[in-house]
């Protein structure tokens, strides 16, 4: 046990007072003349009981005083921060480019050398880079256990995102009270991994960042990506992109139906240096009339991870209707109408129609951005539509009819306090948001609106917040339907939202999410991004690929595959659905950073700006105490002992 303010422990010295009073009281020095001694012969049992009571009262007093001092000293559980120790955080590149040759083993050995032998109090943390920074082993003094975890770890199948993990490790180390703080970068310095990194922004001062030298480029590296399987004129056509990242080479492409050992098609390829080509390959009849999936593989090269891709036949779905109400008045451009019209050319299949004046078709999606759909009979149709399982995306524009309809659903929308508001936090793990932000979060930062409304947090599941902490975007169920409500308008006059880069992807994802059509993009899902599934639970199992084919898990809503391959989602009473999961194509480019070592610039040069160790020690202790607060337990125990002392003392003084 440790103490945040141990000075208060000197208060234990106050125990001297009750002890002294007790001892002084025991010394009988006074003589009391009394005429009725004949009635006063107390029994020995009474005397013994009284003695025990007095000792119990003394013990309770001492305990209460000691606990009071302990409560003020703020005790907490956990290892004491050791200012003389060494803190190390290893940032691990778990992308599939690390599968190249002996790159993983070499870098792991190099990391072991950098960590060296740990002394008592040293801490070690293992931070995985991808898909988002996450702790494999949070900083711990059990260094040997952390090293064992590192030895058991293998390269993953993600794409490299170096900077977020390096920044997080820097911030964690900055708050560490250790004498020496080191960041060990266990990565291959792949150029695409550092894309967008701001090398001018240094890590906190006092952190020694150690980077390995850039790994040697592989001699032979080609990759397959974007594989699809389509049906044309009673023949199956496989389409795949082949890219060569090294010098000219000859490779063999083979296509296997499902888990067959024999290829149904073998095609020699002659790839020139840096060549990228899209192949359309008619498959022979031996592939069958309805193959569940196919595997396309190149002969293994120095990076075999991206030499195989899988494809499934297209899911035949009828176009789902998207009901769009009237655009902005005054002849202004209808950005939303234009965006959805463009999206009809992309999966999932959508059919954009105006909101009908008759009954709304079931299982459709209504995009509602003005008052017309909330007035009179239209409001009744909207209620019926939602009760029947329809979905809606409502943009709050401030209209009275819309506000009244929302109030009828117990959703009281409040205008934001500020005339303009920015979006701040997104629920990054939500299946609607996760696919949007998995590749580029920057486009979703700083959306600004001239008019904003706050949604009730107790009635709605928050997906994004305004800067004042109120809800800006949320999801809820109305009737049987799924509804997204945005506390902002899609009107160009009230913000730059319609012209932002994220506008069309946002609308696309909202349509896919609300219609539950993400499965239609089965061939486009990638490792690390969320696959949208039905909300009712089902079995998720890998049918092909490097994943364990025997394991089966129960999932619902969404799942984030960690390896490529073919996956099957099975629900009772429904036909199984297949998903082909691929790799991030940019990760296949093994080109190392070519112009110097800009990551060295991340190391702060100004040592004077380093936070004093005493401050860091206090901060670490304070954080540890916040996580394991015991002071109020001490207060509660003190109060109980004080009450017991009062109760018992009243029985001992008369």
């Amino acid at each position: 046990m440790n103490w945040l303010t141990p000075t208060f422990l000197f208060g234990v010295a106050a125990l001297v007072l009750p002890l002294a009073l007790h001892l002084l009281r025991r010394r009988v020095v006074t003589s009391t003349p009394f005429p009725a001694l004949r009635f006063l012969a107390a029994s020995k049992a009474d005397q013994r009981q009284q003695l025990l009571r007095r000792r119990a009262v003394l013990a309770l007093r001492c305990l209460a005083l000691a606990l009071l001092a302990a409560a003020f000293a703020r005790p907490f559980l956990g290892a004491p921060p050791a200012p003389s120790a060494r803190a190390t955080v290893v940032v691990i590149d778990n992308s599939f480019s690390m599968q190249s040759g002996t790159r993983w083993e070499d870098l792991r050995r190099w990391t072991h050398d950098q960590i060296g032998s740990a002394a008592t109090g040293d801490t070690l943390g293992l931070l995985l880079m991808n898909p988002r920074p996450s702790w494999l082993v949070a900083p711990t003094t059990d260094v040997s256990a952390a090293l064992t975890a590192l030895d058991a770890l293998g390269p993953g199948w993600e794409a490299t995102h170096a900077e977020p993990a390096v920044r997080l490790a820097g911030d964690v180390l900055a708050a560490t009270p250790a004498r020496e703080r080191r960041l060990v970068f266990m990565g291959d310095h792949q150029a695409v991994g550092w894309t967008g990194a701001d090398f001018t922004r240094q890590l906190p001062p006092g952190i020694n960042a150690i980077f390995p030298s850039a790994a040697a480029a592989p001699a032979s590296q080609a990759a397959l990506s974007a594989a699809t399987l389509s049906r044309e004129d009673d023949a199956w056509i496989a389409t795949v992109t082949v890219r060569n990242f090294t010098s000219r080479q000859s490779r063999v492409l083979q296509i296997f139906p499902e888990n067959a050992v024999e290829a149904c098609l073998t095609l020699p390829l002659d790839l020139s240096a840096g060549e990228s080509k899209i192949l359309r390959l008619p498959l022979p009849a031996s592939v069958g009339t309805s193959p569940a999936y196919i595997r396309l593989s190149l002969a293994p090269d120095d990076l075999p991870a991206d030499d195989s891709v899988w494809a499934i036949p297209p899911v035949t779905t009828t176009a789902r209707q998207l009901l769009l109400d009237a655009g902005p008045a005054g002849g202004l451009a209808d950005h939303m109408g234009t965006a959805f019209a463009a999206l009809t050319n992309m999966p999932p299949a959508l059919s954009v129609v105006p909101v009908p004046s008759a009954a709304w078709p079931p299982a459709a999606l209504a995009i509602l951005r003005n008052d017309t759909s909330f007035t009179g009979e239209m409001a009744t149709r909207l209620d019926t539509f939602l009760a029947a399982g329809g979905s809606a995306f409502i943009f709050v524009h401030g209209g009275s009819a819309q506000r009244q309809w929302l109030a009828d659903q117990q959703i009281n929308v409040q205008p934001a306090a500020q005339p303009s508001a920015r979006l701040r936090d997104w629920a990054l793990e939500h299946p609607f948001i996760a696919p949007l932000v998995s590749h580029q979060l920057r486009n979703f930062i700083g959306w600004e609106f001239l008019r904003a409304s706050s949604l009730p947090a107790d009635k709605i599941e928050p997906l994004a917040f305004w800067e004042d902490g109120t809800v800006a975007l949320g999801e809820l169920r109305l009737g049987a339907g799924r509804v997204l409500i945005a506390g902002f308008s899609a009107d160009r006059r009230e913000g730059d939202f319609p012209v932002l880069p994220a506008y069309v992807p946002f609308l696309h994802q909202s349509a896919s999410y609300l219609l539950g059509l993400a499965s239609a993009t089965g061939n486009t899902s990638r490792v690390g991004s969320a696959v949208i599934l039905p909300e009712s639970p089902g079995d998720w199992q890998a049918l092909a690929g490097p994943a364990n084919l025997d394991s089966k898990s129960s999932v619902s809503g969404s799942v984030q595959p960690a390896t490529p391959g073919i996956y099957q989602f099975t629900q009772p009473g429904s036909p199984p659905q297949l998903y082909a999961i691929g790799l991030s194509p940019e990760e296949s480019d093994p080109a190392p950073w070519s112009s110097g070592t800009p990551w060295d610039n991340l190391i702060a040069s100004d040592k004077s700006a380093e936070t004093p160790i005493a401050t860091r020690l206090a901060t670490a202790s304070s954080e540890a105490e916040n996580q394991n607060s015991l002071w109020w337990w001490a207060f509660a125990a003190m109060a109980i002992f004080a009450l017991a002392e009062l109760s018992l003392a009243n029985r001992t003084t008369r």
Partner: protein
Amino acid sequence: MNRAQVPLPGIRPPLPLLRRLGYLPPPVRPLDVGELAALGSLPLRARRLADALGAGSHTSRRKGASIEFADYRDYQQGDDLRRVDWRLFARTDRLHLRETHEETPLRVVLLLDISTSMAYTSRPGQLSKLDYARMLLGAIALLTRRQRDSIGAALLTNEVVKWLPPASAPRRRQAVWSLLDTPPSGIATNLPAALDEILDLAPRRCLFVLASDFYDDSERLAAVVRRLRYERHDLLALHVADPAEVDFNFADPSIFCDIETGQQLSLDPAAGASAYRKKFSAHRDAVHDSLAENGFDHLFVRTDGLPLDPLRTHLARRNGHS
């Protein structure tokens, strides 16, 4: 409402000014023990307490020759014919004798226990049990003399220390007060033996007023009380106790030393307080029961208060006004 209808505020001159000018009597202060203790001497205390108690004449329980009618009874052979009510004979044709109260002087004997335990006071500067008992008996002596009854007194320890037989001489009151002012004896109590001795000395049909703390065996006391009743005496027992003896509110452990025997007991008061209170109450109840069984009055008084109302009640009952 016009100005003429507005009532004028009442003029209330300050009461202290009126008193100073002699228009008002001084305020009546209730009598308390502190005031009596400050008076210093027994005569003053006794007079002040007697004034507070008030006076009432005793009435004899015997019937005899006087002018105050008591009752009629049938004529019996040998009765004095002078006492026949001839007017009643004329109306009823039967002989009845008219009886009247005999105005006999009351013999009051004050008995004061001057054993060592009576000198106890738990509060320095306040009245000890002995002083308090002296004051009560002194006031009763004054009231008795004001009624011209005979009065006597005795001091008791384990025997009768001094004995002043009842008499109605005018100077007897002063003699009684002098006797009561005798300092404590330093001898332990033996109340039954002393009472036995006083019964041998006292004339018949006395009213004994006994002031004591009754620290004696209640069984032995009961025997002598029965003798009191048998010899047609009357008894008013004033059971005097200090507040500390009743409440026993000592806090700190101490060596408790018996005033009479010198016996010592090292004790934590909290340990024995409850048992002490039970034993003390049981003893008090035993004394009360043995007196009440024989038709005598037992008045328990604490030295931190004045039993004016109970004492008035007892005196009134003695006077036949109850």
